[in-house]
């Protein structure tokens, strides 16, 4: 069997002491970051990105990936105990996890989220192992037109699930515009630098990510995050679910895993969307939807399985096509490129040790995470008690040092300040900054492929329609756009009806 041979290669690569060590560090840091409200995996990965210059490419990716999927496990802890999501994708876990805690079932909720996370992650991994070689083979047939179409689909998908698709779309375009700053690769012309030589190589990705997710969030969170109300101890016995709770949560985990795996593989949609979709599905399928929001265990199990499944399958497009599955993947992609590895269809055949070693490290990491999250849960709960007033000044210093060290320039720290203020302003006006970062990262790639496709077809836009793969991707994109418009019109109609009803009363 191919799969066994491949995993054999992976085992050999992953079972070295250095790889195991960085996998351990990655998932440990990931759990820590995930547990703490107010700092997410995205900020943590952008902080660690400069540090990875000092270690090898393979261990760097193993560590960064560990932070990413480790944070998906930890994120639900604060959501359940304090109703504060530790990561964006665990916001759904507040809905039923926190009522469970108030009903005295906090231990069970924490236990189920870990089991669901593990089940989701393993499902995602199986998809990753079996599908990646096929997607890579398909990817070999891709030309610039297909790449452009696929990235367009990713961007459209990213705003489809935004609260307001128009505002999400505007953020994507703003991100694309920001990516125009710097030297144009085709002509060498320097654009939008306003005389700053530091901008000629473009706006720093790390500075942008930290400004928009690190600094803007910190400004918002000071004096609002309160973790002092916590006073719980957990014994292993109090964590074990009853037979009834198992019966309810197992099918939910399976459905959540399937939904998460699907949305993870789509470029542009990631863990947050998966968990929202699977929660909505559970509520719709349930015979007693009124239990949701009052501590239904299905509402905890399904989204947790979904966000972990998608965290694993997000690696499919990232590694096999070089198109990031979501924004965190985009940063990991950036890290790979910095280390001289260009992910794409050739990666699996050209560097099998890297690819399969990474996958085996995921398996090891997920097993470690179960150990971290069940026997050691007390440790994380006590970490939650660190007051935010001690954390945020520390995080700010780490952000400054991290950004500085990318190119040894204080200019990038000023960039963080400017972007942080912009991010805060956009957040206050209820724009979701995630699509902005996705647009910024995909911008240069899209520009390159669009121009190349146009150059090859001598300016004939029909090239996107004449090529069958590109055409089918564009059809899917058009369907997604149609879906956006239809659902926002429907929402508007519903709102109007509700408005009229309330006026009538």
């Amino acid at each position, binding site marked *: 069997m191919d799969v066994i041979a491949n995993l054999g290669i992976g085992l050999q690569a992953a079972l070295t002491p250095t790889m195991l060590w960085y996998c351990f560090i990655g998932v440990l840091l990931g759990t820590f970051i995930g547990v703490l409200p107010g700092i997410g995996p995205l900020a943590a990965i952008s902080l660690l990105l400069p540090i990875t210059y*000092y270690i090898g490419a393979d261990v760097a990716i193993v560590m960064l990936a560990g932070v990413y999927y480790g944070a998906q496990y930890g994120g639900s802890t604060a959501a359940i105990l304090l109703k504060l999501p530790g990561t964006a994708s665990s916001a759904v876990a507040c809905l039923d996890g926190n009522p469970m805690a108030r009903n005295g079932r906090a231990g069970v909720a924490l236990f189920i989220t870990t089991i669901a996370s593990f089940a989701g992650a393993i499902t995602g991994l199986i998809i990753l192992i079996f599908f990646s070689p096929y997607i890579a083979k398909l990817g070999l047939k891709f030309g610039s037109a297909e790449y452009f179409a696929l990235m367009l689909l990713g961007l459209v998908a990213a705003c489809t699930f935004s609260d307001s698709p*128009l*505002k999400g*779309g*505007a953020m994507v*375009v*703003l991100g*694309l*515009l920001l990516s*125009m700053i710097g030297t*144009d690769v*085709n*002509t060498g*012309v320097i*654009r*939008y630098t306003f005389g700053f030589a530091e901008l000629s190589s473009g706006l720093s990705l790390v500075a942008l990510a930290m400004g928009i997710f690190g*600094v803007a969030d*910190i*400004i*918002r969170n*000071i*004096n609002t995050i309160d973790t002092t109300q916590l006073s719980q101890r957990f014994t292993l016995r109090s964590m074990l679910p009853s037979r009834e709770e198992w019966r309810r949560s197992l099918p939910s985990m399976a459905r959540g895993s399937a939904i998460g795996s699907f949305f993870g593989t789509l470029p542009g949609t990631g863990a947050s969307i998966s968990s929202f979709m699977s929660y909505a599905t559970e509520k719709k399928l349930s015979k007693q939807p009124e239990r949701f929001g009052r501590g239904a265990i299905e509402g905890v199990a399904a989204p947790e399985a979904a966000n972990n499944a998608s965290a694993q399958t997000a690696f499919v497009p990232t590694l096999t096509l070089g198109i990031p599955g979501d924004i965190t993947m985009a940063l990991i992609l950036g890290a790979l490129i910095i280390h001289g590895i260009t992910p794409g269809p050739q990666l699996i055949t050209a560097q099998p040790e890297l690819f399969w070693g990474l996958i085996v490290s995921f398996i090891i990491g997920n097993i470690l995470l179960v150990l971290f999250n069940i026997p050691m849960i007390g440790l994380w709960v006590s970490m939650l008690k660190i*007051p*935010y*007033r*001690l954390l*945020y*000044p*520390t995080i*700010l*210093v*780490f*952000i*400054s*040092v991290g950004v*500085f*060290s990318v190119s*040894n320039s*204080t200019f990038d*720290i*000023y960039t*963080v*300040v400017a972007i*942080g*203020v912009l991010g*805060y*302003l*956009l957040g*206050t*006006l*209820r*724009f979701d900054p995630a699509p902005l970062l996705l647009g910024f990262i995909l911008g240069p790639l899209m*520009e390159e492929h*669009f*121009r190349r496709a*146009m*150059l090859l077809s*001598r*300016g004939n*836009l029909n090239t996107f329609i004449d090529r069958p793969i590109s055409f089918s991707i564009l059809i899917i994109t058009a369907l997604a756009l149609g879906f956006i418009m239809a659902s926002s019109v429907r929402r508007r109609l519903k709102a109007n009806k509700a408005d009229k009803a309330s006026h009538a009363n």
Partner: protein
Amino acid sequence: MTKWTLKVNHDLFGGLLLVGISAFAYYHGQQYAMGSLARMGPGFLPTLLSVVLGVMGAILTVASQWKPSSRVQIQLGQLLIVAGSLALFALLLRPAGLLVATFISVIVSSWADRQITWPGRLLLAGVVAGLASLIFIVGLGMNMPLWWG
């Protein structure tokens, strides 16, 4: 902490902000050659994108008229203190070194919190400055000055 609580229409201000950014990007982009679809110049996509952004902003602005205003809180004090502490760090890092820059920037940034006391603030600044120096300069050997010089 200084706070502004305003009642505003998010989409109106958001839409106007987008239109403003797009107009700026459009006019600034006019100095770059457009080229043709087959051979795009450096100005082609910036122009295209700023037009798209402007249209989206305009739709948002117009559509905002059917949406209610709601309360918004701008935590101005926190914004200024956080931004100031970062800028101060950048300003001090080269001449004064990591230890001093960290110490001062933590003193400033901790101001944003309501509960912290002076002894706590000094202790925190000292601990973070020590930790940062240990991790980044001793541990990772990053290229930055530790002290004046």
